[in-house]
Structures are given as C-alpha cells and as structure tokens.
C-alpha cells in the first residue's frame, strides 16, 4: 500500500518540482545577468581623471624587470624613488584641488537636475580613490624616510603652486619678443606720420624762415615725447 502511494506521489509531484526548478533557474539567471550588466556598466563609467602617470612611474620603478641579457633587475637608487614619490604627491595635490573646486559646482548642478547620476557616481569614485591614494603615499613616504609622511604633502603643495606660478610668468616673458617687434613697427609708423606732418608744416613755415623749423624737427622726432618720460620718473618711486 505504501509502495502504491509512493509511486503516485512522485508522479504527481514531478510537475510542481519541475515548475519550481524552472522558476528558480530563470530567477537565478536573471539576477546574475542583471548584476553583471550593472557591474560592467559602472565599471565602464569613464574614470574622472586620466591614468595617474606619476603613480605608474613610481610603481614601475619599484617593480623594475631585468633587461634582456641580464639576470638582475637594475638597482634603482633611493633618491630616484623619493623624487618619483614626490612627483606623485604633486600630481595628487593637483587632483585634490580639482576635486575640491568641482565638488560645490557639481552638487548645485545635481540639485537642479542639470547633470545625470552617472557623473555623480564617477565623481564619488574619484573621491574615494584619491583618499586611498593619499594614504598610500603617506605610508610610502614614511617607509622611505622616517617622518617624511608628515611633510610630503606640504612640500608637494608648494611645488604645485610654484610650478603654476612659473608657467604663468614664463608665458608672460614668452610674449616679450613679439611685443617688442610690434612696438618697433608701430614706432616706425608713428615716426613716418610725424615726419609727414612736419613736412607739411615746414612747407608753410619756410616762408618765414628755416632756422626755427630745424629746431622744431629735432625736438619733435622721438616718438615718445621726453616730457612724458620725465613725468614717469618723478611720478612713481
């Protein structure tokens, strides 16, 4: 009697079991595919910053590979490693400044709905990355020279600011040649105009007498009048 019951039970249960398995499998596949897509979507979001070149150089230096034909990897002196770390810190400072300045603007834009959520996600990831990057640099600095972790970012900050200042000043100095040439040309034309005017006047003046005209021409030829130059000297000290 038991056997009988058992047989029937299995057969009638097959359908619900099949139903459950199909349901389970389909749910599982859906969730895995969905999650994978979402993960790949967020991974495909463009990173906020371009690749960190200085960091790559620093880490490449620590993992130098032997050149062809040689057994040992070349030894990198500590001073070079320290310089590379400092460059890395300078780049980090630049990135932090950029993050800080764009944060406010981004938040306002987000509140107004002018930018999408993607941008915010990218930004938050960049923020997190830079925090970890800073911690990493500090610990590396302390490993290279005891106590350097405390001051490396101060130094990096000054370096970044100093470099910015020097590029601006260089840009100004770089214009000097073209400005000078421009002024030379301009002065020539002013001179010519002046001479023309004088010629015109001297035709009129020659009736009276040429001596006075000679004096007039001499004092008048320099493009900038000497009187204004004197004013400058006394005007500012």
């Amino acid at each position: 009697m038991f056997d009988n019951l058992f047989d029937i039970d299995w057969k009638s249960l097959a359908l619900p079991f099949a139903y459950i398995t199909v349901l389970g499998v389909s749910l599982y596949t859906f969730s895995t595919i969905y999650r994978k897509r979402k993960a790949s979507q967020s991974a495909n979001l463009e990173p906020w910053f371009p690749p960190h070149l200085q960091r790559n150089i620093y880490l490449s230096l620590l993992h130098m590979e032997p050149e062809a034909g040689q057994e040992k990897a070349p030894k990198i002196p500590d001073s070079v490693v320290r310089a590379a770390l400092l460059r890395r810190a300078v780049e980090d400072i630049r990135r932090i400044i950029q993050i800080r300045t764009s944060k406010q603007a981004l938040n306002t834009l987000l509140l107004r709905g002018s930018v999408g959520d993607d941008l915010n996600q990218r930004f938050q990831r960049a923020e997190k990355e830079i925090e970890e990057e800073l911690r990493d640099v500090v610990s590396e600095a302390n490993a290279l020279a005891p106590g350097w972790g405390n001051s490396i970012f101060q130094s990096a900050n000054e370096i970044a600011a100093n470099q910015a200042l020097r590029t601006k000043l260089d840009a100004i100095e770089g214009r000097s040649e073209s400005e000078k040439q421009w002024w030379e040309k301009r002065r020539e034309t002013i001179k010519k105009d002046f001479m023309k005017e004088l010629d015109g006047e001297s035709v009129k003046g020659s009736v009276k007498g040429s001596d006075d005209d000679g004096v007039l021409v001499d004092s008048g030829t320099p493009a900038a009048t000497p009187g204004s130059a004197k004013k400058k000297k006394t005007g500012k000290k």
Partner: protein
Amino acid sequence: MSDIDTFTLLPLQIDPQSKALSTASSSRSLQAELAALNTLHRALLTVETPNQVPPPPVPVNPKRSANINKLRDSGNDAYRKGKHNDAIKFYSLGLQMALGRPLWEPQQLVREEVASLYANRAQAHMALQGWPEGALDAEASVEAKRVGNSKAWWRRGKCLLEMGRFAEAREWASKGLEMEGEDGELAALLKEIDVKLGKEKKSSS
C-alpha cells in the same frame, strides 16, 4: 579602470652613471614627465637634510633671501644714480635667483620677492622708454601679486598709454582700481587715459 591595487608597468630604463631615467616608449607625456622627474631628482640631491627629502616649507634658509635683497638694493641704488641699464641688470639677476629657489620653498615668499623685483625692473625700463618691456614686467609683477601692488598696476597702464594702446590701458587701469580700491594715482591715470581716448575718437570721427 584604474584600481587602487593595479598599475601599468612602464618601460623604464636607468642610466647606471647619471641615474637619469629614460624610456623606450614614444609617449610624449611620459618623456616630459621623466624629464621633470630627473630635474627634481638632481635638485633633491643638493638638499642637506639627513634623508635627502625636502624639508618642510618653513623655516626657509635665509641665505638666498639675503642675496636677493642685496641685489634689489644694488639695483635701487643704480636706479637712483640714473644708471638704469645697471639697475635692470641687478634686478634681472635678483629675479633669476628668486625664480631659482627650490620648488618646495614657500610660493608666497617667491611671489613677494618676484613681484617687487619685476615692478622695479618695469620702472627702470620705463625710465629708458622701453615701454613694451616695462609693460610686460609690470604685468608679471601683478601676476605674482595681485593685491597691494598698485605701483605695478599703474606702471603697466602707463606703458600701454605711452604705446597708444588706449583701450587696453583703460581696461587694465579700471581692473587695477577694482583690485586696489581707491588709489589716487590709478584714478588719475584712468582720467588721463579717458582724455586720450576722447581725443582719439574725436580725431577719427
């Protein structure tokens, strides 16, 4: 995606003698970065701290500041005696020294020194009627120090005026007035520019 645990291995080589880094890659940004790194490395080698790491920005080594001040004073003396060319030379030397400061020293200090040297050199150029040079030096001075630098604002304005660039001069002078607040000389300069501008308009119309 740049992960915190991964990095891109770059093809780097080191010269065993000079310790200079180079690369086989043709990437221009990488080469520029390596050049900057090599310069920084050489600068770091001259540091006298025990680990050869740059010292914290303050306190500053007073030697260089003293030299710069000396050069500026010599320049001022030459200027007062009317030797404008000598003054320009002194100021240029001072500028070289101020801009040659190690990069990790405080930029605020560099700005102060450079601003006064540029402003003084602008004045010397102006005494020689070198308007374009004076204009650029004054602009550089303002770039280094925007506020509390009314002399430099005035000098560039004056140079532009002398070169006949009235519209530029006017823009510059009014910007200077905005930054410096009420400055008598700048205001006077602005008036002068306006008079010239008015004349120019009259003659052209």
